[in-house]
């Protein structure tokens, strides 16, 4: 039987496909780009949601992984376009403009960063964890600003979008297809993860740490693994986002970005698998609609977020689908 929530999930995923297809047939590339942006931001949210929704880890530093993914794209592509080798040893590597390789590098680097940041931050909990993830994110932000070799504060532009074998990535609808397929794969993976032995233990550690220890499992290891997976997915989203804009800058690493990724998760409904999809789509919609009315549209976003937090914990999906078992 299909619950209201899963019906809504399918509807959202379908809408995210149909809108850009319709825009394509009407020759409205801007709308396709908006949909691509929504899909990529949703992907970043899906990553955060594994730590936040499933693991209960309130990370305010996920911009670090988003930005690392972005810089992985920027640096590889910049070296490739300028024909300057990235390194000569142990083998010659000239950078790359091939998306699959860029994604791999983005995922590996952001996973490594998440491993280090997580190993340090997860020694603490509660407010400390929030502040420390925030601080480490900010550390990378300042590092990027001072790193003049790759543009420093001004960021790094690339001239041509990177390539994917067999596709023309400069065609908005084809690039959208890439982002959309990756988002669907990530959602599928997140769903499997939530139902897996690991997911069961991770979400149990969020609910009752003593219980998990008493059955002989170590919450720290579970959380660290979740943090790494979460960071890797958000890093992949960062690489795609930078490719979408053909630009990466320290802004991707700033804590506002961390806050925004968290907003995608919350607007949709925390702990809900498809929450980030709803949240990111709503965010893009608001940015586009309200941004057209007022330059100060983020006031409205702030008020909306405040109202949701104070009065509607379930977020958008919660409001439509009602209170439902969020896990398991």
């Amino acid at each position, binding site marked *: 039987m299909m619950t209201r929530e899963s019906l809504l999930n399918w509807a959202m995923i379908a809408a995210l496909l149909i809108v850009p297809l319709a825009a394509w047939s009407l020759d409205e590339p801007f709308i396709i780009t908006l949909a691509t942006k929504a899909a990529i931001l949703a992907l970043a949210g899906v990553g955060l949601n594994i730590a936040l929704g499933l693991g209960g880890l309130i990370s305010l530093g996920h911009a670090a992984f988003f930005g690392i993914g972005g810089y992985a794209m920027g640096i590889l592509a910049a070296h490739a376009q300028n024909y300057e080798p990235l390194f000569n040893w142990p083998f010659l590597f000239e950078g790359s403009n091939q998306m699959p390789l860029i994604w791999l590098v983005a995922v590996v680097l952001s996973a490594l960063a998440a491993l280090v940041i997580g190993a340090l931050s997860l020694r603490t909990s509660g407010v400390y964890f929030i502040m420390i993830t925030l601080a480490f994110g900010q550390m990378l932000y300042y590092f990027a600003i001072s790193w003049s070799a790759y543009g420093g504060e001004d960021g790094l532009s690339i001239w041509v979008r990177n390539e994917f074998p067999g596709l023309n990535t400069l065609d908005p609808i084809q690039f959208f297809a890439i982002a959309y397929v990756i988002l669907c794969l990530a959602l599928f993976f997140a769903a499997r993860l939530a139902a897996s*032995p690991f*997911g069961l233990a991770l979400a149990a550690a969020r609910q*009752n740490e003593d*219980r998990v220890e*008493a*059955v*002989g499992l170590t919450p720290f290891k579970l959380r660290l693994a979740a943090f790494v997976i979460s960071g890797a997915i958000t890093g992949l989203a960062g690489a795609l986002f930078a490719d979408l804009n053909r630009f990466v800058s320290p802004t991707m690493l700033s804590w506002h970005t961390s806050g925004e990724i968290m907003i995608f998760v919350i607007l949709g409904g925390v702990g809900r698998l498809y929450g980030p999809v709803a949240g990111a789509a709503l965010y893009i919609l608001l940015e586009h609609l309200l941004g057209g009315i007022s330059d100060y549209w983020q006031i409205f976003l702030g008020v909306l977020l405040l109202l949701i937090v104070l009065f509607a914990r379930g977020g958008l999906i919660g409001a439509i689908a009602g209170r439902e078992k969020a896990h*398991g």
Partner: protein
Amino acid sequence: MAEVVLRTENLCKSFGALKASSDVSLDLRAGEIHALIGPNGAGKSTLIKQIAGNFRPDSGRVELLGRDVTALDTVARARMGLGRTFQISALAMEYTVLQNAVLGALGGQGRVFRFFRNVMKDPALLAVARDALERVGLADAADRRTADLSHGQRRQLEVAVALTLKPKLFLMDEPMAGLGADGSHRLTGFLDGLRQEAPILLVEHDMDAVFALADRISVLVYGQIIATGTAAEIRANAEVRRAYLGEEDAA
């Protein structure tokens, strides 16, 4: 004499000026139920936490299955076969009853870093979980949300999760608390049979249960064990009557 499964030697633990454990030595042998009783504030919880691995003693040692585990944490001790139930139910409240039991079975099996298979369709884990629920009489409640259970049912589930670990010994902190006469009677019967499977260190306030079940009883007062013996010996012990039972009668 039966094999000693758990032994504490001269455990001392202070919080500032308060001596919560002073020179506590006790053991738990195969096949027995050893009850630990004492008035509120006697240091039972502190002792339990040192045995389970939450607290490190200031001095003294804890031995599990003949091995010194004083330096090991709760997780390592659980893996060695220490099955614990908590005074205040420690369960994943959003989960169903079955999910909590499967969590226990998963812990017992130890292969948690699997990311794709559906854990609730794993026949081996489900068998262990359902068996444990069956034994404590919660089979019918398997699909209910744990948060919706009655207090007594949560106590039963605590025991069931401990069972899924197939432990070498049980450490039970007030399993009867809040059960009511009927439930407490049923659990007493169950624990009676369980001791053959693995010995039980039982902290309990329900004196009827304690005197009905325990092979041996230790009395903890102000952090010290003032007496250890059979139910009859404890009943007859003048110091215990003065320090503890008398106090209860007066209350």
